[in-house]
């Protein structure tokens, strides 16, 4: 898979050019307001770049499509459906047979450990369970690329930690290309093959770090902390610059 992006969405992003490989876990970090979510929206096809274009498997992205499924900060489950019908939602849209919907929904609910809750109503789930159900809904689509827009930022720290570990496992099991936008450098390092830092203002893509560490990764280990500090410093410089920019 090749994805080239070159252009800017409104005033937010300037000349970002990157290529994400098939099966890669790619994270995007940066100070708030740097346009990381915009970049994700562009890849998803919700917005179109003003200059340049995005290619998915050599074809330009012209709008949303189910080869790229997006997950949000809010689980955005449908409250009028129960858990399993939420997972079946996308499969129904694609036109899967009832039997296949049933089978795939069960398979992915099991993967996210919600198989016992398939007939629950959305409001009966905890925040973490909702996000897991949303993950099952997205994975069940058999998409090539999963786009995650700060999927854990609305959860408490405990749940976030558990979900991160689960996501690492699930990703290993259901090998997909994942592009994660997050404000947590630690999260990005824990999960990703590569981490991109987006600069504040209109600077665009600043640097891409490769994370060559064996999995499961140890958050307290020496190389982890070293890389974390390096990226954090990078982000901090961006934040300071953007603040200075605001005062000028």
């Amino acid at each position: 898979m090749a994805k080239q992006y070159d252009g800017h969405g409104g005033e937010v992003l300037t000349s970002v050019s990157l290529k994400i490989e098939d099966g890669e876990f790619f994270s995007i970090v940066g100070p708030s307001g740097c346009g990381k979510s915009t970049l994700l929206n562009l890849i998803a096809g919700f917005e179109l770049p003003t200059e340049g274009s995005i290619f998915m498997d050599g074809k330009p992205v012209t709008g949303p499509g189910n080869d790229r499924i997006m997950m949000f900060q809010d689980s955005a489950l449908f409250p009028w459906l129960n858990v399993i019908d939420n997972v079946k939602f996308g499969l129904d849209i694609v036109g899967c047979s009832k039997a296949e919907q049933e089978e795939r929904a069960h398979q992915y609910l099991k993967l996210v450990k919600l198989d016992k809750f398939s007939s629950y109503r959305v409001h009966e789930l905890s925040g973490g369970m909702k996000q897991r159900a949303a993950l099952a809904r997205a994975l069940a689509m058999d998409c090539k690329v999963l786009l995650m827009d700060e999927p854990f930022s609305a959860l408490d720290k405990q749940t976030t930690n558990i979900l991160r570990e689960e996501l690492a496992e699930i990703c290993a099991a259901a090998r997909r290309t994942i592009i994660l936008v997050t404000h947590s450098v630690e999260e990005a390092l824990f999960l990703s093959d590569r981490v991109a830092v987006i600069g504040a203002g209109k600077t665009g893509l600043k640097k891409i770090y490769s994370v060559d560490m064996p999995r499961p990764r140890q958050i307290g280990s020496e190389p982890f902390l070293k890389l974390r500090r390096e990226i954090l410093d990078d982000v901090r410089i961006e934040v300071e610059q953007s603040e200075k920019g605001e005062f000028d």
Partner: protein
Amino acid sequence: MKKENLTKKESWKGTLMVPVFYVVLIIVWQLVYWVGTSSLGLWKSYAFPSPLMVLESCISLIQKGTLFQALLYSIVRGILGFGLAIVIGFVLGILLSLSEGLHRCLHPFLLGLQTLPSICWVPFAILWFGLDESAIIFVVVMGSAFSIALSVRNGIRNVNPLWIKVARTMGSNQKQLYRKVIVPAAMPAFVEGLRQGWSFAWRALMSGEVMSATVGLGHTLMMGRDLADINQVMLIMIVIVVIGIVIDRFVFRQIEESMLKKRGL
């Protein structure tokens, strides 16, 4: 044990408080009638209704079959007019949700029409349709369709944009988006709109019947005035209110509550 007693006491209070209140209210009303008309002579007895005489009037109207016939006519007209208003309201509401420009242009006009009491449509309706059923139906439609249209439009417009994004990222087309996301998501707003629309429709129906019907609750009300029978007037007013409450409670509230409960709201 203690806690159980407490909840028992509370539920006793909850179930009996309201009926007891109304029984007391009716007794007070009867007492006011007695004291006010015979002892103090404040009012003439034909100008002030009493609960017992309203009941008497009720029994006599039931025996004559007038009450049942009036009810039947009013409810059938109500269903016809409201049904038509729902169709027009939904079509208009969907059009308004599709075009922001159309909504901007029509919104003040529709709100203006909402402030026009439905009785004001009666002269127009009579001139247009003559003194017949369609005139009353027309008044009902004019009284409730626009309120329904605005609710439908707002319901569609206020659907959580994230849900729409989810559907789009899953690759849904416009038809699937409406059928699977927008309509179910806006359903609570639709029901709320229908509930409000019904109360407008019922009021409009009574205005229409008072002015032009030859049978129906509104007409029976006017008959009471023509016969100078204050008890019949009071009775019909009570019946109109009760029907309004019953339909609101046992139709719309029922649907609304079961739907919201399912969604955990």
